[in-house]
């Protein structure tokens, strides 16, 4: 083939990728400390990635107002991770070209798996704030940490709520409860649902009347499923929805007059997202979602340092987005704040010293944003019982905190859910 053409191709390649001698940007000049931020900013998960970025940027500014990290201003090198290949590739770029020693992100399990592998190979710290894949910490990778509990924790909390808070109010014992499990089939939905099923059955003996997964992106109609469920007559519906599927299920259940005592969800998507309330208004009343704290949260229940930073965080998010923080904001923000606490203690990003600092942290519940405490296990997982989660309920257009009762001024309503038009 033409040598000319070949030459052009090769030159293009060299220019695009090589970029010349200043390609490697490395760490910024003195005064700034750069970390890598890897989030899905395009594709299906873009809306969550955007919220994560908002939470991160808000907390970054809060950190810089308080002196930054290790005496320097915290700055981000942001990368978009749409799919596993991109995640790995961008992680590589952040490490090699941007010279970061710490990467945070990444929201989705398919992305955090690939990216953390790359980081581990380069001895770069991976500070995960939201992905819930239970296997994340079990791969023998060093310097990989997760600030949020994994899917098993979500399922654990949900069943805790159902067994200890709901069942008595239905005048039923946990092992008399009939539970229907419905879920979207991504790694998130599967992780939470499976752990919930496990605990429901083995620890409480709840009766599982249905288990169904579906793909939320192609779901058009929930009527067949609802008709089936009407006949199975569950007490509690454990539904992990992602987006449109939650709205569809709830709305069509109302149309079909499908009655049940409670619906419980977990996470910042689907029923736990702002869009659910926007789509249904007061019709959304009654749904429970396991999340980070919302309105009603008693700051007084937190320790003093926790109160300060939680208030600052909430105000900043309110100023920036006009709303109370949503789950994605809270997870990303808390993750970054926790990173700052570690760096304050370690005073360096040397992986071994960083690791020692991480392991030495031991703060009780109520110490920081979201009312979390901190205690990392040997494999870098923040403990279930420190990462306090809360049950929120949709009440008149707002997701308010209703459980655990010592943390909130508000109480859950409509237990059991009555007729559809009676939930005011």
């Amino acid at each position: 083939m033409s040598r000319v053409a070949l030459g052009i191709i090769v030159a293009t390649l060299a220019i695009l990728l090589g970029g010349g001698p200043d390609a490697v940007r490395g760490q910024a000049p003195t005064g700034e400390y750069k970390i890598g931020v890897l989030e899905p900013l395009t594709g299906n998960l873009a809306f969550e990635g955007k919220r994560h970025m908002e939470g991160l940027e808000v907390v970054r500014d809060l950190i810089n107002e308080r002196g930054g990290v290790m005496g320097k201003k915290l700055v981000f090198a942001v990368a978009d991770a749409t799919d596993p290949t991109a995640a790995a590739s961008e992680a590589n770029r952040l490490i090699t070209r941007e010279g970061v020693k710490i990467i945070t992100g990444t929201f989705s399990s398919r992305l955090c798996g690939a990216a953390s592998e790359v980081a581990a190979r380069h001895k770069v710290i991976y500070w995960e704030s939201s992905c819930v894949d239970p296997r994340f910490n079990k791969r023998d990778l060093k310097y990989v940490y997760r600030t949020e509990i994994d899917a098993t924790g979500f399922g654990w909390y949900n069943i805790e709520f159902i067994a200890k808070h709901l069942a008595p109010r239905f005048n039923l014992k946990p092992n008399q409860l009939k539970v229907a499990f419905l879920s979207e089939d991504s790694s998130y939905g599967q992780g939470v649902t499976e752990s919930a099923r496990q605990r429901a059955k083995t620890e409480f003996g709840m009766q599982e009347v249905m288990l169904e997964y579906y793909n939320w992106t192609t779901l058009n109609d929930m009527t067949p499923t609802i008709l089936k469920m009407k006949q199975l007559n569950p007490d509690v519906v454990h539904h992990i929805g992602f987006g449109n599927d939650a709205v569809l299920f709830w709305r069509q259940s109302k149309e079909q007059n499908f009655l049940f005592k409670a619906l419980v969800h977990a996470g910042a998507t689907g029923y736990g997202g702002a869009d659910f309330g926007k789509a249904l208004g007061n019709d959304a009343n009654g749904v429970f979602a396991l999340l980070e704290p919302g309105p009603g949260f008693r700051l007084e229940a937190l320790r003093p340092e926790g109160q300060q930073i939680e208030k600052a965080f909430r105000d900043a998010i309110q100023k920036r987005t006009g709303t109370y923080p949503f789950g994605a904001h809270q997870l990303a923000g808390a993750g970054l704040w926790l990173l700052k606490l570690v760096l304050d203690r370690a005073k360096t990003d040397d992986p071994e010293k960083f690791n020692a600092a991480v392991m030495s942290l031991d703060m009780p519940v109520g110490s920081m944003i979201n009312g979390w405490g901190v205690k990392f296990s040997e494999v870098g997982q923040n403990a279930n019982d420190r990462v306090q989660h809360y049950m929120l309920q949709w009440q008149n257009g707002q997701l308010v905190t209703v459980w655990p009762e010592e943390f909130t001024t508000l109480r859950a309503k409509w237990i059991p859910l009555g007729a559809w038009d009676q939930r005011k």
Partner: protein
Amino acid sequence: MIARLRSRPGAVALFGLAALTPLFVRDAYFLDSLVLILLWGALSAAWNVAGGYAGQVSIGHASFFGLGAYAAALMVTRFGRGPWLGMLVGVVLSLGAGFIIGFLSNRLRGPYFALSTIAFSQVLLIGVSRWRGFTAGGEGIPVPFRPGFTTLGLGHIAWVYMALAAALLCYAVEVYLERSRLGYRLAGVREDEDAAEALGIPTRRLKVLAIALSAALTSICGSLWAQYVGFVDPTYVFSVDLSVKFALNTIIGGMGTALGPYLGSILITSLETYLRATFSGVKTGFAGIYLIIYGTVLILVVRFVPDGLAGFASRLRARRAHA
């Protein structure tokens, strides 16, 4: 052999350059991009075997990619054996899948054929996502990195050579098709299937063969990819996006030419990587601009350079020869 090498200066230059690069460049990101270029190039070349040489334009090759990726990942995580054995299993599975698809879609042409391949890949996607017990369903499979050759736990430089080997393998198959009787018959099927059949060429059988061969090669690369990136997720490995990428690289580079897929891969992968690196971090609100540019470039290249880069280069050469 020297003569044959001299008759393909483009290939020598390209692969030679790729082989020499790790000796001079140590930048991990550059090497990573090189691995991806070679791997996507190899996958596109594998696609070319069916699409360019036999005229079977499929948009479902992710089926075979996914099968290869899962075979390798499962063999390691579930059965505790090595990824090479997984690769072998993947090849067997993909050959089978290739035969099935080839057989079922035998009478279909053009868009009908393309759509049937998409359907097949989606059936696989859904099936694998639901089979939680075996494939871990939607959660995907994290593939452990264990240093060593038998476990395909390689460093960046070694991966360049691994990807290069895969690229050379697919290239060799393409070259074989260009020079062999099998290749001439496939060309007949591609150019005018009815005429070829009238001439006594067993078109049906050849089509199935081409697809199966293409499938096997795709699967091999899929297994390599699984070990390289380290996470196998069904919604990605069986996705239509991936299938489109394989076809796209080849079309841009030049269908039915041996070097075309690699040229296309260089252009597209570089563009993709470059745009993503430069624009994605700009501002949250502008995420997506780089994809708009990517899509537009796609439309333009496909429209104005339909022969692909290789075709363009030949035309340049022909014009210069006549000048």
